[in-house]
């Protein structure tokens, strides 16, 4: 590790410890590190968006490549900024309508197909007498019972109450799996930082 890398990594190590200091209690070191991350991120993505959106999609096509039709989306973009004026804010609705109209037109049919139709189709498979078949039956029972739990037009009592209770258990199993994976994810981040600190300390002492 060169001197420059050692210094930069030293700064990263100090900031890591500053963030971890929150585990003891809130303190100025934590606040500084937190705000530094937010500020650097905002500055970074503002500049990146400027170069990849504004320069590439407005300045270069209009002023260098003479593709004048890029003026139309640019004007629509500028109209979004009229939201800051009470008098002219109605103009921003035109841009928004254009944007939402296109997005809805593109997204709705294909989202319905990918996220609803294909998922329903996958739930309705022939039952086989093997582990996959048992799995399909369990999934189907879990699906129906979970949907029953969210059906509030009928009182959850009697047989319907029992079905919705199975739905709660199914949901709890799902949440449990999600929680377990979340813990695993967070611990992974912590392990990464500890490994970073270990490597840095070893590099610092020339090991």
């Amino acid at each position, binding site marked *: 590790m060169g001197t420059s890398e050692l210094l930069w990594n030293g700064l990263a190590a100090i900031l890591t410890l500053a963030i971890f200091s929150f585990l003891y209690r809130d303190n100025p070191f934590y606040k500084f590190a937190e705000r530094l991350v937010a500020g650097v991120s905002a500055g970074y993505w503002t500049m990146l968006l400027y170069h990849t959106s504004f320069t590439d999609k407005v300045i270069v096509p209009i002023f260098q490549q003479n593709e004048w039709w890029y003026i139309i989306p640019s004007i629509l973009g500028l109209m979004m900024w009229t939201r800051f004026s009470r008098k002219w804010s109605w103009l921003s609705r035109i841009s928004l309508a254009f944007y939402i109209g296109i997005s809805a037109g593109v997204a709705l049919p294909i989202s319905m197909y990918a996220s609803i139709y294909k*998922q329903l189709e996958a739930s309705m498979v022939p039952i086989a007498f093997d582990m996959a078949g048992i799995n399909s039956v369990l999934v189907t029972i879990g699906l129906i019972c979970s949907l029953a739990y969210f059906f509030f037009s009928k009182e959850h009592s009697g047989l319907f109450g029992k079905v919705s209770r199975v739905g709660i258990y199914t949901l709890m199993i799902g949440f449990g799996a999600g929680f377990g*994976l979340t813990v695993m994810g967070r611990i992974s981040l912590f*392990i990464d930082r500890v490994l970073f600190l270990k490597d840095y300390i070893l590099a610092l002492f020339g090991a």
Partner: protein
Amino acid sequence: MYFFERITKFDRRIIFLVIGLSVILPLLFRVDMPVDVTQEVKNVYDRIDELPEGSIIVLPCEYAPDTMAELEPMLFAVLRHCFRKNIRVIGCGFFVTGVTLVEQELRQIAKEEGKVYGKDYIFLGYRPYPAVVIMSMGQDFRQSFPEDYYGTPLDSLPMMKNVKNYKDTKLVLTINATSGVDYWIIYGHERYGFPLAIGVTAVMAADYYSYLNSGQIVGIIGGLKGAAEYEKLIGQGDLATMGMNIQSFVHLVIVLFIVIGNVGYLMTRKKRKGLE
């Protein structure tokens, strides 16, 4: 009863300290825990392994420093596998704060494996609005990326000769910590029909198993565990394998805390009910 009341009112800082120690101790006394390979990870591995030499895969990586701990080992393992099989890679990144990170990682592994930029791999860089970019790449990669990340026109890169869109590639594998996965499924796979595999954080993995069961994706690499499985498949244990050794130990400690907490809760419940 006093003991059980005490354990339900543990100072959370003691728990943090114990978790911290349970990460540091396995580092000092290395213990190798077994890693079992799951079918969903093997599916991704097999799909890449079966590709003929010279095939091209698209590797969009959408993550930032806050999720790199899980996804960086995954990218390393997948890239090593691809490069060793002489499979060419088109990298890109649609997550604004992770673009330079992904570019560095791609370059690092390519250097390790002796691969040449433009011939064995390219990096397209970043463009905003992933859904639009994914769809335009289905027409022609050049629509959104007339030039690569370094400003070189795509047509001048040898690897991109006769490569127009997804039809000229064999697989899209997105390593992703964002809702961009949904975009790849909906606007990419469903619209253009290419085989899609995903590598996601552990938090996200549970949400995408339904897409695996429906056949909309060919496989999932989930979190650090998935990355460790992939490392096992390529026969090179690295960051994820080391991380999972520690992770397994920490999980034991967390389970212990959950048991202690529940025992304390159950033993003091009667008393609390009496007070109510």
